[in-house]
C-alpha cells in the first residue's frame, strides 16, 4: 500500500489524457454538427463542458498524487515550474505546459460570456496543442507506455485528431465561402438596365 499514490498518479494521468482526447472529439462533433439534430447540440455542449471539467479534476488528482508520492519526491515548485525537478525534467515540462494550457482553456470557457468570441476561440484552439503536449508528456515521462503497441496507438490517435481538425477547419472554411460570394452580383442584364 506504500505505492498507492504512485499507482493513482499513473492511472489518473492516463485517464486524464483519454479525457482530453474525448473532450476534443466531442467538441469536433459539436462544431461540425455531423450528427445532425440527434443528439441535440445542447446535449453535446453539456457533455463537452462536463468532460472538460472532469479532465481538470483528473489532472488535479494526478498532480496531487505525485505531490504525495515518495517515489519521485516532487515539490510544489517542481510541479509548477518547468525544468526545476530532477526526475525527467524535459518530459515533466511538457506536462506542466499542458496543465497551464488546460487551465487557460477551462477559465476562458467559464468566462466566455465576458470576453469576445474571437479571443475565446483563439484560446480554445490551443486544445490541439494541449493534446500534443500531453501526448509527448505521456510517451516520455510515462513509465507504462513503453510498449510499442501503446505508443503506436497514441501516436496514431494524435495524427487522427490533427488531421481531423485540419479537415474540419477546411470543410467549415469551404462552407463559409459561398456565403461571402452570395452578395448580389450584377448580371449582364441588370448592368444593361434590363428588367
Amino acid at each position: 500500500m506504500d505505492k498507492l499514490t504512485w499507482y493513482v498518479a499513473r492511472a489518473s494521468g492516463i485517464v486524464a489524457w483519454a479525457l482530453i482526447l474525448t473532450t476534443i472529439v466531442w467538441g469536433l462533433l459539436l462544431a461540425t454538427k455531423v450528427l445532425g439534430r440527434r443528439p441535440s447540440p445542447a446535449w453535446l455542449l453539456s457533455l463537452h463542458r462536463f468532460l472538460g471539467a472532469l479532465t481538470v479534476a483528473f489532472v488535479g488528482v494526478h498532480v496531487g498524487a505525485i505531490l504525495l508520492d515518495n517515489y519521485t519526491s516532487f515539490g510544489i515548485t517542481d510541479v509548477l515550474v518547468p525544468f526545476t525537478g530532477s526526475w525527467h525534467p524535459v518530459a515533466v515540462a511538457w506536462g506542466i505546459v499542458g496543465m497551464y494550457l488546460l487551465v487557460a482553456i477551462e477559465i476562458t470557457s467559464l468566462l466566455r460570456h465576458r470576453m469576445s468570441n474571437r479571443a475565446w476561440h483563439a484560446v480554445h484552439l490551443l486544445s490541439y496543442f494541449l493534446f500534443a503536449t500531453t501526448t509527448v508528456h505521456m510517451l516520455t515521462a510515462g513509465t507504462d507506455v513503453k510498449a510499442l503497441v501503446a505508443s503506436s496507438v497514441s501516436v496514431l490517435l494524435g495524427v487522427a485528431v490533427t488531421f481531423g481538425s485540419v479537415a474540419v477547419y477546411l470543410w467549415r472554411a469551404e462552407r463559409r465561402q459561398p456565403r461571402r460570394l452570395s452578395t448580389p452580383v450584377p448580371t449582364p442584364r441588370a448592368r444593361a438596365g434590363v428588367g
Partner: protein
Amino acid sequence: MDEPTADRMPPTRRHRPRRKPRAARARRAAAALSVAATLTLGGVFAWRDGQSATTTTATAAAKRTSTTATTTTTGATGATGATTSTTTPSTSTSDSSASSGTTSSASSSTSATAHTTTSGS
C-alpha cells in the same frame, strides 16, 4: 352536464412523470467510467509491479544459487559429473548420492533455466 373523468382530465404538471435530462445521465456515466478506468488501471499496475517484483526476487535468488554452484563446481574434482548434470538435471539428482559436486551443479543448471525465462519475459 357530465363531470370530467380522470381520463379526460389534462395531466397536471405535478402528475407528469419527471424525466431525467439525458445529459445528466451521460455525465454520470462519463464520471463513473473515468473512475472505473482509473481504479482498473491502478489495479493492473499494482498487479504487474507485484509480478515483476516476484520475478526480480526469483532472478536474484537464482543468480545467488548459480554463483554458489559455480564456486562449488570449481572446487569439485570430477568434471564428468558436472557435464552430465547440466544436460539432464534429473539424472544428476538421482546421482546426488555419488558426490556433492554433482548436486550443486544440478541446482546450477536449474537456476540458469529460471534466469533465462525471466529475462525473456
